[in-house]
């Protein structure tokens, strides 16, 4: 309990340092652009591949579990669409990004800590927490909604392609289904969740990396902890946000 409270306190103290006024905004802007490429653009591949196959599986599962003459087949498209928009493209993709981006952030910052690069920044009079972490937070919070939109589109496309190829639904029925009773707010809900999840993944992982003490072994441990803690926090917030935004 004491360790949890101590960790929680140090997290908020770190956030206080991260969100203080940047020394030189132009340098932070440049750093943010670099992070957009490193944490955002370089995640498009994995998000696309996973979304495509998950969309396909959701469609097949929906089809096989609703094999009943009473149910119209367009419901397969509708079910796949809502599953992808409401849960899959925000939460599951965020969990995948917690693994990819979270471990990357924790190990990068942890290595900077053990090789005294963070000390070097502090000694120069640079707010190291803000300089290193703020651009990452801004980059992921800005870019992850695009990843979610890409995931939604790819997931639905995956469902269409594999669903029709497996002959569980016709293209016409699937397309009708994804348009049927569409609630635009679901997209907003998904994007709000994505922004909050992006913040959680980046800051929790950065906190783990920033407070590493020791050597490469501890950096590895911090990287693992970053993935575990950000995933658990993310799932907890998924429940809270779902209740708040959909009730």
């Amino acid at each position, binding site marked *: 309990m004491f360790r949890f409270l101590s960790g929680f306190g140090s997290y908020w103290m770190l956030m206080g340092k991260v969100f203080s006024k940047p020394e030189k905004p132009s*340098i932070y802007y440049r750093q943010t652009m670099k992070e957009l490429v490193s944490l955002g653009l370089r995640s498009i591949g994995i998000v696309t591949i996973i979304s495509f196959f998950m969309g396909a599986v959701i469609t097949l599962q929906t089809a096989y579990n609703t094999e009943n003459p009473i149910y119209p087949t367009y419901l397969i498209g509708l079910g796949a669409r809502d599953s992808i928009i409401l849960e899959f493209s925000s939460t599951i993709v965020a969990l995948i990004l917690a693994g990819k981006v979270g471990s990357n952030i924790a190990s990068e910052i942890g290595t900077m800590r053990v*090789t005294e690069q963070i000390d070097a920044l*502090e000694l*120069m*009079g640079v707010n190291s927490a803000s300089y290193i972490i703020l651009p990452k937070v801004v980059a992921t919070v800005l870019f992850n909604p695009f990843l979610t939109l890409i995931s939604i589109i790819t997931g639905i496309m995956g469902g269409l392609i594999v669903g029709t190829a497996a002959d569980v639904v016709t293209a016409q029925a699937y397309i009708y289904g994804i348009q049927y009773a569409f609630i635009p707010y679901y997209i907003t809900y998904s994007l709000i969740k994505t922004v909050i999840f992006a913040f959680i993944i980046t800051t929790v992982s950065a906190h783990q990396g920033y407070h590493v003490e020791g050597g490469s072994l501890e950096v590895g441990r911090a990287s693992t902890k970053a993935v575990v803690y950000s995933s658990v926090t993310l799932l907890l917030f998924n429940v809270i946000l779902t209740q708040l935004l959909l009730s």
Partner: protein
Amino acid sequence: MIRAEHISKSFGDRKVLTDISALFEPGKTNLIIGKSGSGKTVFLKCLVGLLDVDEGKIWYNDVLFTDLDFHGRKEIRKQMGMLFQGSALFDSMSVEENVRFPLDMFTSMSYEEKLERVNFCLDRVNIVNSNKLFPSELSGGMKKRVAIARAIALKPRFLFCDEPNSGLDPKTSIVIDELIREITVELNMTTIVNTHDMNSVMENGEKIIFIEEGEKCWEGNRSEILKSDCRILNEFVFANSLARQLKESSK
């Protein structure tokens, strides 16, 4: 000038520094010597404010550094340069970007002016045609020299070096020692070097402080060290037979 008064520091129950006082003068290479684990690095980190002292005061000229908050320290830190044990170059930046970093952060110089200063600093540490290389492509000695170039980019008034010779061959160590000594005189800096390299002590030791188990045991210069009758210091300095022969011949 840097003045440390009665510095003590503990980590939990373990006392690492006990009541250390010292005066470090400008234009001189001040050495802190002692065996591994004696508290040299902790003392240096306390001096630069990377660790907070439990007791004692640290003055930078007439400014009481230990009483300053983050923003106050920031102003003093802009006048500091530090060479870390592992060089601490930023992996994601090239040599040029590393040296330019403090200029980017704290000056309003144009790109051309910054480049001129970067090239001057790199030239001063004998690094040529390596601007676009990354730290992973440099040798240990080159990394140290680039780190010195970065440390002097803003013309600091205080230079701190933590084990500048660790992991270097004797010849490269001498080059680094000479460089530190020359730069100290050129910029009239107050330089503090942590070392356990006896070649450095004999070459650069204008003022030497010997720390043993967190306590200051001896203070003097390189000529006095040969004549000292401090047993613990002699055990450290004259640990090998060659050094003992030198001591005998100096009597």
